[in-house]
């Protein structure tokens, strides 16, 4: 017995040694920053000289900060359109390319390629594609007799352009996730549904969709969290313009914190954004749960 407990002690010592770099980095770059972010949000920290406690001043100021709420409205608009489209299109393409047919692998590869691009490179390419006069998009629309808008320069289409670009970039990996999910749905469910005379739509409604619920939950959660923290594409495509319609909370926090050095105030903004992300995630969880009880 003594030797077993000795072995266990030795094992535990080794284990703590093995995890110590990870835990150390985790404490320094996650635990400490979270606590500090909370503290900063009650101070007027500005990097240069101030770091005084200011109670709820930052939060009070935030309530009346129209620009801050505009960025929230922008990103909410973005999320509400982007997330459902992302799920719908990814699932649609996954169902299409789940067939075993000649060339399917090539199609999957072509659909996956955009997810390899960085946000900056993708945005750069799309700035050119969406060029009002010489861009490919408006040229193609021109073939159909439509005069395309100045995508990135008009208030009505700027956010739609960002949605288009981010969809282009994110569909591929979600498609792969959905294909993996589809392949996990047991065949006998479809067989028995066919015997019961269920048509294709009913089979989708009562087998595919509920069986993919965990996958959909994953995809929607990840895209909501990503969508509410949109930055790169907005920064490169439109610089937040025109007239702030594509300015996002992260963009504003970045400017407030690192351009204007109002880090205390920016921390308060970041906390409220995190709260919003939490709320959206919970709502999403509820929606997915209710789906379960219906089926």
């Amino acid at each position: 017995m003594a030797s077993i407990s000795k072995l266990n002690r030795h094992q535990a010592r080794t284990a703590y040694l093995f995890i110590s770099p990870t835990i150390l980095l985790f404490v320094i770059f996650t635990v400490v920053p979270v606590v500090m972010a909370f503290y900063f949000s009650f101070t007027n920290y500005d990097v240069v000289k101030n770091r005084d406690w200011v109670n709820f001043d930052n939060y009070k100021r935030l309530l009346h900060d129209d620009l801050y709420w505009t960025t929230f409205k922008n990103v909410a608009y973005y999320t509400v359109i982007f997330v459902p489209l992302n799920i719908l299109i990814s699932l649609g393409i996954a169902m299409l390319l789940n067939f075993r047919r000649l060339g399917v692998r090539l199609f999957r590869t072509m659909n996956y390629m955009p997810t390899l691009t960085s946000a900056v490179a993708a945005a750069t390419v799309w700035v050119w594609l969406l060029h009002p006069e010489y861009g490919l998009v408006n040229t193609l629309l021109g073939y159909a007799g439509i005069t395309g808008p100045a995508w990135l320069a008009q208030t009505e289409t700027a956010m739609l352009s960002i949605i288009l670009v981010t969809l282009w970039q994110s569909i591929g990996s979600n498609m792969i996730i959905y294909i993996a999910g589809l392949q996990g749905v047991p065949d006998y469910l479809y067989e028995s549904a066919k015997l019961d005379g269920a048509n294709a739509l009913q089979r989708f409604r009562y087998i595919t969709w509920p069986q993919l619920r965990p996958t959909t939950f994953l995809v929607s959660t990840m895209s909501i969290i990503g969508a509410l923290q949109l930055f790169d594409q907005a920064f490169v495509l439109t610089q937040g313009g025109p007239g702030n319609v594509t300015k996002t909370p992260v963009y504003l926090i970045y400017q407030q914190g690192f351009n204007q050095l109002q880090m205390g105030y920016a921390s308060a903004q970041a906390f409220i954004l995190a709260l919003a992300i939490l709320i959206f995630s919970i709502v999403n969880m509820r929606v997915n749960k209710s789906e379960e009880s219906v089926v």
Partner: protein
Amino acid sequence: MSVKSAAAGAARASRPPAVSASASRVFWRIVFYVVSIAISVFMFLPFFWSLITSLKPSDEIFSMPIRWLPSRLTLEHYRAAFTTVPFGLYFWNSLMLAVAGVAANLFFGSLSGFAFAKLNFKLNKPLFRVLLAAMMIPGIVTMIPSFYVLKHFPFAGGNDWYGAGGNGFLNSFWGIILPGASGSFAVFFMRQFFLTLPSDMMEMARIEGAGEFRIFWNIYWPLTKPALATLGIFTFQAGWNSFLWPMIILNDPDKATIQMGLQAFSYNHQTDFGPMMAGALIAILPILLLFLALQKYFVQGIAFSGTKG
């Protein structure tokens, strides 16, 4: 919608007692290919168009109507991209950062993943749960304080032990490498993989008198090659493509990453679409090559995060 009807149609076509079964099968096969090709072409078009633009002579870029194929191919835009800004240097910086991130994550991630999967210790479950839960914290919350921590890191960049006096890890590659050196995802991913490996090899090695680190290093680590490949690819992609954090940490133009260089270039040279497209393609190229060489691991990795996540 056509996607759904194609799926529905293909399923319907496979039902046995249809009168014109083979005719409708051919019909749906055609629908399948038309829709698939249309979608794939749309997804691929931006690559094609940026490539064509980057190889066109300048005067043909702005031609009306557009020229689908250039009259001659030229590399002048690539030359311009490398000479107007130090794109080669940016490329090198990004490569160093991405490779360092991969090396650190593979090593620390599998070390911790091994401990969490194979070793008994009291805090195993609680610590792992905390790491997992922390993955839900949005990055924006820790952005400003992480900057503060790096700036006031003791003994770094001219700082004293109290973290004052210098600029810490600001404007240094460490400011990028350290915060991401052992990501929670790497630990989680490697733990899941180690769980699938049998434990009796460990017992055997212990009886033979091997130390724990040797068990890890000589017996288990070589078995994790597929997982390491997958994790390495994703870590590389994340490091190579990251933009906001390097932009915050690195002020020195000589330390800029390729994403920062590309952004600055497209911001300052808004009408130079030839070099812009050349730059964008150069920024995409390493990941694209990695993907073409190791496609299998990419797909496995995403499927993993989809089924276990």
